[in-house]
């Protein structure tokens, strides 16, 4: 049994026969660690975190989440998915259900909670992301920032041990980015294990324990945020940082 919450060992993945999207990924994440992953588009960073709850499957190497190896075993996969919450760039709320129903669906179906219990839990989480008054609206009646906060509350209702964020602020108008980052910062202080694909470098600096830079399917550099931003080791990282920090 390893001490790590998530462990990638020589993980490889291809799209089709030619596009090598993950190359020999080795990565260990300790419990409670907060990691920010950045890199140019197409570098494989989203694919990397999507492998953790097997929205994408890897073809080579070993990927272990909380001691469970990810494979075609459906039962193991369901156990892993119950521990791992995910927040998407496009929110992916269920538009035909109210905010409250979005939050109670999985607790009722997956965790077999009663409706009252699930609703209580949902309201607690909605208060946490400061949106309780919208509980009975439909997702499309909310702003992007509000929708993303609902999406975060939805995953929190399952009390995950690991949270994956896949560019959570990229689809938002600038004035809404802060409200979502505030919620994420608050979560980071709770000791939950977080992996976050984002270009919000301010967030990385203030919250992350470690920053990972990926390019062409490889982890090029990983370091604590201070050294990562002040003394990037590789030329590629330096180039990337200059591009996104000068804007």
């Amino acid at each position: 049994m390893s001490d790590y919450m998530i462990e990638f060992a020589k993980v490889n993945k291809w799209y089709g026969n030619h596009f090598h999207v993950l190359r020999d990924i080795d990565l260990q994440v300790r419990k409670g660690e907060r990691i920010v992953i950045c890199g140019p588009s197409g570098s494989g960073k989203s694919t990397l975190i999507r492998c953790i709850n097997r929205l994408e499957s890897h073809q080579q190497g070993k990927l272990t989440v909380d001691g469970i190896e990810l494979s075609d075993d459906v039962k193991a996969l369901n156990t892993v998915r119950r521990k791992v919450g995910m927040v998407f760039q496009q929110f992916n709320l269920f538009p035909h259900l109210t905010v409250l129903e979005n939050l109670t669906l999985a607790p009722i179906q997956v965790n077999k909670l009663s409706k009252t219990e699930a609703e209580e839990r949902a309201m607690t989480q909605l208060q946490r992301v400061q949106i309780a008054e919208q509980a009975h609206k439909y997702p499309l009646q909310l702003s992007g920032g509000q929708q993303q906060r609902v999406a975060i509350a939805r995953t929190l209702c399952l009390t995950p041990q690991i949270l994956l964020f896949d560019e959570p602020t990229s689809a938002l108008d600038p004035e809404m980015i802060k409200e979502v980052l505030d919620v994420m910062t608050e979560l980071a202080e709770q000791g939950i294990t977080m992996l976050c694909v984002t270009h919000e470098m301010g967030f990385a600096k203030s919250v992350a324990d470690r920053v990972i830079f990926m390019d062409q399917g490889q982890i090029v550099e990983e370091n604590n945020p201070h050294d990562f931003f002040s003394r990037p080791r590789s030329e590629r990282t330096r180039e990337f940082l200059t591009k996104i920090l000068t804007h």
Partner: protein
Amino acid sequence: MLQTQDTLAWIRTNLFSTWFNSGITLALGALLLYTVPQAWGWAISHAVWGADVEQCNAARGTGACWGVVAEKYRPIIFGRYPFEEQWRPLLATLLLMALLLASCMRVFWCKWLGALWVVVLAAFFILMHGGLLGLALVETGLWGGLPLTILLASLSVVGAFPLAVLLALGRVSELPVFKTLCTVYVELIRGVPLISVLFMASFLFPLFMPEGFSIDVLLRVLVAMVLFAAAYLSEVIRGGLQAIPRGQYEAAASLGLTYWQMQRKIILPQALATVVPGIMNNFISTFKDTSLVTIVSLYELTGSLDLAVNSQPDWMPYKLEGYLFIAAIYFVFCFSLSRYSQWVEQQVNRGKVH
């Protein structure tokens, strides 16, 4: 005064805005002036309403003979069902209609609706078939007219819908075996006319049955209609499934929902909601397709009209009026279905309002 002005303004902008539009308005106006009085005269003012062949013959060419309906409405509506016993199909049909109406209404969507279906269908069959409770036995071959039309249409739709959902899910499935099976099924059924499927169910199928073993012709035809309708309906539903963004599947999977939980709670509700007009289209077309079962000697509404009028040379010339009568019946049902469809659309689109 103001109203007259408004009306004039409306006429000017909508009917006479350009020379071209004025021309069309005048031409259509002339056509209506010519046809409407003629149709009115034929159908209403010169029409014969009583069941009197002499009068009908006298009015031939100038007025409609609604007498054919007055004379023959019972065999048209109830087919070959024994005359004395026709209260039974009447009662059975009213029960079935009440059940269908209830099933359409939100207040009745609860757990015991399924049980109600079983009870009402059992009552329908006991009333129609008899042979117990002191009711005389009436073979299914004698069932006919509107009761048969409604029975076939409602059971085809109710049977075809779940099958169509499964077929559609099979066709978009990632499992090659299901995908191929469902695709082959749909293409095979879609590739042949309903009449030939009915023929096979009615005449060919019994040949393959062991000696002394037979399945009722009504049941065979019903199964054929269900299988046929399901193939078409599944393609409509598949269209809805393809409109669901990938993100919905990913969100459902990341929350740990199983395949069936995801389909039942997330995917199907949205997929079906997007294709309500197509589904209703299909239901209406299934309803009218029931008229084809005449070909295998089950005399539903259209068939029983033929049967009722063809046997009487006196009334034969007035079959057109008979057809208009049953056309009106078909229209009432189909129009109700399409109004219901609009209500369903309003219901399912609530979440989309900004």
